[in-house]
């Protein structure tokens, strides 16, 4: 896989930077955990002293929630907590920084309408400009959400965890999945439509509901009916003619059916041979019996949808079982577990979908049972502590003391306090990832690491720069001596070049903008590097083409061929005339010369491919920093 600028998705420079970022952020999280542990210990100490001072009363819980966490909610919270953690761990794969957009996001949006592609492209641009920050952020955000869900079982913290999960899920669904591909051609329930993360969003939304919502079967029935409509809709879509799902592989070869082609493609990605063989076998079976396979899928989808639509527990139970089996089969045989291949980001749609409709069923049939006012079971859920005097004591008939009067933290039952702190810690993990990403997103200049991965790190030198004296596009003589006192970026460009040189010129123009006021102390000089097109007319045409006439400190210099040869030789620039319509081949170098006329930095300036704006921006950022380092020694 290649991003187009010569960087493979496993480029060692970027991968190493990604690992380093993860380690650094992990250390920050460890520090955060240590602080929270100290807080926890301090509060417990204060509590213990107060308890001793108060005569050693035993803390007994008073249940603030009249029933334990409903089974349906618990299923959603714990399972999606684990799924978010799995997704976070999948994001640590080394190919994520450079491979996610080119290998997953852009291809998945490629069949969608242009407006979807534009929306997705805005997110892709941020990721491509800051691949290390973005990939590391995604790891911690998703791990944090998972921990948040697991650590906060009840109350506001728990509902907030659901909301955070739903919010991030929406971001991923829009920018990462291109709206789940629902607007694209070839979308299918089998392939993951309407997007796996949409089920994370649904789960987050359900977890964020108020407690009262779980007290009656209405929520379960609503989920069941929505599931029913969804399955029927997907069944209709699967049955829609002309989308290639009714055909397998025509006898004698030819274009494969859509499902056969997908299975073939999935079986070819990097994975254990056993899973590959399953998927390949199914693809082969579908190739032979495409119509029958699709017929069965359509019938099952419609039948399961009808079961859910009734919202009757007994019938829905049949739908849950059948849906679960169908989901499992599709997950293994079509979606190939979803997360294999090196850039898999989640287990795809089947597992989260099955969890959502199963929880809907539980919300219908397993309603919470109200508990007595005080019970250890409730304490296990994390109830606030209430000090209850021993039986027969004078204070027994007194009203319950308000925990808030004893301090918001020190008045809490220990397990509740611990879970609250853990939830804060999990939220901290989210912020550890989100904060650097938010900062990076506000910076329109790409990370220097991209250019360093292609061109290497700057080469620092300190020697007198070879002199030159040539003529710029305005007819003025430009020499090393005439530039004394200014920091100079010196490069070599072919005015009739069709690719790299125009890109390098644009990088220099962006550098000039990034320099801001410092541009007054910098001169950008390009020496003609084509032995056949050396005229000022050629440099003028290049300047017009690239809009360099608006850059006041820009000089595109030329001169007699002998003089140019001398400059090329003294600066070690190789030039080769290629036959049969090839471009002039020459070195892509930028020399940074200080105000004393000393060479200080040599940068390789290969701009990569035409469309790689991130790499171009990255080079401009590096050159700007090197120039500013010399402007402000």
């Amino acid at each position: 896989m290649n991003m187009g600028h010569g960087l493979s998705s496993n480029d060692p420079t970027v991968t190493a930077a990604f690992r380093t970022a993860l380690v650094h952020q992990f250390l920050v999280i460890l520090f955060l955990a240590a602080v929270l542990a100290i807080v926890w210990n301090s509060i417990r100490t204060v509590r213990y002293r107060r308890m001793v001072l108060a005569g050693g009363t035993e803390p007994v819980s008073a249940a603030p929630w009249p029933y334990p966490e409903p089974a349906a909610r618990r299923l959603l919270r714990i399972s999606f907590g684990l799924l978010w953690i799995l997704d976070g761990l999948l994001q640590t794969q080394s190919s994520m920084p450079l491979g996610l957009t080119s290998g997953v996001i852009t291809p998945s949006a490629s069949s969608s309408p242009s407006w979807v592609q534009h929306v997705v492209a805005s997110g892709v641009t941020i990721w491509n400009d800051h691949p290390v920050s973005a990939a590391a952020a995604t790891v911690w955000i998703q791990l944090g959400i998972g921990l948040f869900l697991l650590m906060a079982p009840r109350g506001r913290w728990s509902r907030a965890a659901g909301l955070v999960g739903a919010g991030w899920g929406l971001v991923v669904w829009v920018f990462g999945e291109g709206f789940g591909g629902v607007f694209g051609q070839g979308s299918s329930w089998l392939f993951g439509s309407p997007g796996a993360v949409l089920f994370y969003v649904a789960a987050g939304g359900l977890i964020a509901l108020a407690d009262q919502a779980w007290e009656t079967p209405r929520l379960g029935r609503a989920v069941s009916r929505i599931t029913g409509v969804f399955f029927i809709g997907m069944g209709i879509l699967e049955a829609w003619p002309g989308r290639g799902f009714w055909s397998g592989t025509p006898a004698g070869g030819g274009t494969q059916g859509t499902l056969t082609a997908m299975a073939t493609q999935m079986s070819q990605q990097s994975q254990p041979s056993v899973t590959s063989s399953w998927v390949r076998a199914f693809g082969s079976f579908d190739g032979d019996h495409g119509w029958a396979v699709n017929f069965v899928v359509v019938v099952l989808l419609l039948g399961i949808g009808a079961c859910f639509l009734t919202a009757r527990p007994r019938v829905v139970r049949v739908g849950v079982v059948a849906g679960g089996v169908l989901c499992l089969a599709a997950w293994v045989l079509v979606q190939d577990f979803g997360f294999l291949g090196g850039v898999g980001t989640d287990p795809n749609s089947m597992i989260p979908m099955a969890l959502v409709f199963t929880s809907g069923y539980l919300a219908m049939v397993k309603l919470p049972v109200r508990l007595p006012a005080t019970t250890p079971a409730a304490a296990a859920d994390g109830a606030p502590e209430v000090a209850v005097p021993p039986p027969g004591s004078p204070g027994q008939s007194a009203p319950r003391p308000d925990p808030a009067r004893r301090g918001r933290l020190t008045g809490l039952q220990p397990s509740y306090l611990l879970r609250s702190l853990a939830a804060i810690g999990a939220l901290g993990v989210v912020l550890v990832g989100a904060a650097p990403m938010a900062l990076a997103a506000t910076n329109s200049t790409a990370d220097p690491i991209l250019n360093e991965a292609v061109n290497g790190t700057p080469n620092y030198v300190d020697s007198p720069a070879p002199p030159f004296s040539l003529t710029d596009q305005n007819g003025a003589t430009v020499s090393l001596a005439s530039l004394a006192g200014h920091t100079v970026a010196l490069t070599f460009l072919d005015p009739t070049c069709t690719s790299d040189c125009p890109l390098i010129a644009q990088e220099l123009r962006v550098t000039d903008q990034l320099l801001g006021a410092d541009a007054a102390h910098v001169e950008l000089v390009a020496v003609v590097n084509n032995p056949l097109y050396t005229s000022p007319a050629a440099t003028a045409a290049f300047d017009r083409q690239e809009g360099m006439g608006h850059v006041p400190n820009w000089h595109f210099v030329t001169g007699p061929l002998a003089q140019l040869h001398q400059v090329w030789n003294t600066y070690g620039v190789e030039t080769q005339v290629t036959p049969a319509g090839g471009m002039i081949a020459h070195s892509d170098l930028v020399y940074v010369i200080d105000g004393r006329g000393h060479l200080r930095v040599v940068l390789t300036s290969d701009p990569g491919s035409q469309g790689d704006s991130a790499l171009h921006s990255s080079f401009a950022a590096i050159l700007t920093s090197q120039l500013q380092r010399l402007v402000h020694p």
Partner: protein
Amino acid sequence: MTGRAAARLAALGVLAVTLAACSSSPSATGSGTSSVLPPAQVVSGATGSWATVVMGHLDDPLNTFGELLYRPGGPDCLGLVPCVPPAWTLATPAGVASNGGLFATLATGGTLTVGFGVSLDLTFSPLAETADQGAAWSTGVLSAGLVPVTDALAASGAPGAPARLALVSTGGGQVLSSSGDLSTWAVMARRAAVASAAAASGCVAGPLTAVAIAPSGVDLVAATCGSGRRAGIFRVGSGGTAAAVTPVGPVLPGPVTAPVRVGRLVTTPAGVTALVVAGSGRSRRLYLATSDDDTATWTVSAPFATSGAVVASSVDPTGGMVVVLDTGGHRTAATAARGGPWTTLPGLPAGTSIVAGGPGAVFSALIPSGSTVTVDVLSGGSWIRNQLLAVPIQYGSTGAGGGGPT
């Protein structure tokens, strides 16, 4: 909102999503970096013939190259039977990537001017000129890109006293002129001026399609006419205003179907030759119009009916022409001598790009494929393999990054 209402609302949403998925339109795909390349052509003079062909990996714009081939003049067959004409050699001028194709014009004095088509980030056309059959080249630039038509460049005069015209894409079509340095050009006429003059003669002018310099030095520009029977050829006087533009094109004989497009406008030692294409599809007719008195009078051939589009053409020194026609991927060739009727050549070898030669001379079919050009000559009514020319194309030399050529 009640649970039932919420369920209905959600159901509507799911249905909407499903329907949207059913009716989604195909995605917009990127257009890539390809540009329209000028058609293949052959220009011939006393010193020899020059052919431009497109070759390489034609499905990849970055690895598609325009190449210039040269065949010395002289007796075609060297007295040999079967006829063995002189060999073609590679003559592409160096220094510029030719992914945008090549334009070529041969002045009556023997000077060849070559223009490079725009490609990738190059938006102006570099030029190269030789007066010694490619031994040495001088270079220059146009300030804009040449329009991708065969006769976007024209030149006349002997070395040292050049006159040149260029048809560039700026402003929807402009004619530039140069009488000195290859990089010194001035605007001579704009499309609006030509259109205004054309309207007065009943021609609703479309795009400008060719430029030429008549033997007397009169500047000519051609345009497509959306109506009328007259071919859109105009003299352009000094100033280039509408008043200085005069219609001089021939009136086509018989019933004529619009549009009338001047596909070629070339000056040879024998005068001015124009290929006029009237109509389109099955109603397409070709006319060869020649003038030996500076466009005062024209001789127009009888129409040649064809449904094929003209994809390449060659002009011989006498003003005769060979055209290659493409009908749904099937290629044929037709030829007409100056003042003579059109005749069809025997079926072309597969992959033929251009046919050089003309009435009275041996016909050579140039067949580029990858990095080689095969030359077949017409002998005894069939095409015989004559030459295999290897072209050292530098694949990957354009836009590949990775420290390669720039």
